[in-house]
């Protein structure tokens, strides 16, 4: 409102407004979504986002898929941090079937989830750098992200759309190669990350571009359903890992960084600090990794060892039942949320006892907070709008589901 009145007091530059189509495919949007902007010179009068360009009907698909086949769908929500989505989904089903995981499995999940949070934030933050004209940090940080993907590859065989873990635990234990690569990562990543910090955090040009770009107040952020780093940048310390701990997050001591102004710089700095906190959590979890099984004893949902299938009757029966989805599912409804890369990623699952969910609703943080974008860029320069968008880390996959 204030911005609007400020703006309307200015004279039009050449007496007419122009309509600018930003997207659907535009290098600066980092994804497929369109903004129809009304421009007065280089100032934005109003913006109208249209989304849905990569809508893939996940909620409908999920109603026709057995529980273990929904995991690959969740990969494609926020594809920068697929493992968090996968595990959020697994935990939802585990809540429904009442399955408690052994500590080792929970700690293994935490290590994977925090690695993917680092990967997610690295992409977002280095892209903020790119959009302010600093490509170098991006090229360095993408190498680090590749190393995180190497770690995922050791755990599940794939890199981007991971399908990592299973209902009831992890699909396999950490391999020796994973241990070696993780130790190497934990040793060599922090100094390289600090180099990246040194490039940007106190960089005069970067700060001038970011400070004050696309600010949002804490009240507005809450009203618009912000969660995750974008909300914390506005000064609200809401973090699902602390509010409703899952997967033994209550065992770990970490700080929730918060910002003050809710602008691009605060969002950048909150993510920077979250990367450091994630590293701390990974170190703690890895150094205290409990011994024991890496999955719970839920043969109705967790596939038996393949050699057992060939030699043991019981394993063969369960293998058949899991593959053919012939397991009775409890009737009921559960809501489970995890702290995704972008905030509270919620799964609202309604089961009627059938082999597929009766209804599965995804609370996608991107979809909810992106609607504040026109408000945030009103009266701003076009280049600030681009920066604001990349600092909100809008991921088209999560936006459109």
């Amino acid at each position, binding site marked *: 409102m204030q911005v609007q009145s400020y703006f309307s007091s200015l004279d039009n530059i050449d007496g007419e407004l122009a309509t600018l189509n930003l997207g659907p495919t535009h290098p600066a949007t980092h994804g497929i979504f369109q903004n129809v902007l009304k421009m007065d010179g280089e100032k934005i009068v109003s913006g109208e986002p249209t*989304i*849905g360009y990569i*809508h893939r*009907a996940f*909620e*409908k698909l999920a109603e*026709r898929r057995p529980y273990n086949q929904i995991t690959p769908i969740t990969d494609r929500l926020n594809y920068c941090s697929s493992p968090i989505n996968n595990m959020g989904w697994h935990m939802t089903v585990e*809540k*429904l079937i009442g399955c408690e995981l052994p500590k080792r499995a929970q700690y293994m999940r935490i290590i994977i989830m925090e690695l993917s949070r680092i990967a997610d934030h690295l992409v977002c933050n280095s892209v903020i750098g790119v959009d302010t004209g600093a490509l170098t940090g991006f090229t360095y940080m993408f190498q680090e992200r590749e190393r995180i993907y190497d770690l995922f590859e050791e755990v599940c065989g794939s890199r981007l759309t991971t399908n990592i873990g299973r209902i009831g635990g992890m699909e396999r234990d950490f391999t020796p190669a994973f241990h070696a690569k993780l130790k190497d990562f934990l040793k060599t990543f922090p100094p390289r990350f600090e180099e990246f910090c040194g490039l940007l955090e106190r960089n005069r040009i970067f700060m001038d571009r970011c400070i004050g770009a696309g600010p949002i107040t804490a009240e507005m952020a*809450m*009203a*618009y*359903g912000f969660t995750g780093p974008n909300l914390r940048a506005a000064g609200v310390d*809401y973090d699902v890992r602390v*509010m*409703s701990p899952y997967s033994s997050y209550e065992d770990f001591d970490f700080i929730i960084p918060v910002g003050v102004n809710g602008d691009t710089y605060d969002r950048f700095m909150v993510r920077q600090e979250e990367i450091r906190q994630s590293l701390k959590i990974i170190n703690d979890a890895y150094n205290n990794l409990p011994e024991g099984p890496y999955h719970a004893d839920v043969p109705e949902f967790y596939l038996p060892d393949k050699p057992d299938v060939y030699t043991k009757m019981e394993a063969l029966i369960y293998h058949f039942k899991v593959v053919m*989805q*012939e397991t*009775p*599912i*409890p*009737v*009921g*409804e*559960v*809501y*489970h*949320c995890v702290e995704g890369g972008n905030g*509270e990623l*919620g799964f*609202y699952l*309604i089961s*009627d*006892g*059938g*082999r597929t969910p009766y*209804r599965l*609703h995804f*609370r996608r943080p991107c*979809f*909810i*907070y*992106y*609607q*504040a974008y026109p408000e945030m860029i009103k009266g701003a320069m076009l280049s600030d709008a681009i920066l604001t968008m990349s600092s909100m880390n809008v991921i088209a996959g999560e936006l*459109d*589901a």
Partner: protein
Amino acid sequence: MESEQILGRLAETMPGAVTAHDTAMDGILNIHTTREQLYPLLQTLRDDAQLGFNFLTSLCAIHYPENAGQELGMIYHLHNWTKNVRIRVKIYFPKEDAHVPTICTLWPSANWQERQEYDFFGVVFTGHPDLRRILNVDDMDVFPMRKEYRLEDGTRTDKDDRFFGRDGHEGRSFD
């Protein structure tokens, strides 16, 4: 804040608004209400100092074709951040009269979420400032998440849902 406290406070401030309640298996209190009471109830839940459900986590529609006269429903998830309590508010209404008051004025975050549920279930949110389809194409003339459309080849017999707690919607004939 216990469920009894929430229900007691609601009985004080809005007598008769809660038509039924239960606790879901995840421990979240479900309260059912009517369409007429929905908006004032949500407003009370948000604004009452003792209740304080300040955050709209999500809202979603649901379709139960077998419930005659109550086919469609809306489910709202609210969250009290200071006391860390969640609550679900549910309403059901007939498919032929799929109107629900918008809650955009309470939480701006409901805007796109309501558009999404309109898009997929055809729930019309009265008073919504901009009720258009959001994820599907504009000229689509069906509401695809309603359980009205056959999804797989109807001759397929290897997955007989009648043995798995489900002999209704998915297995019924569409003609």
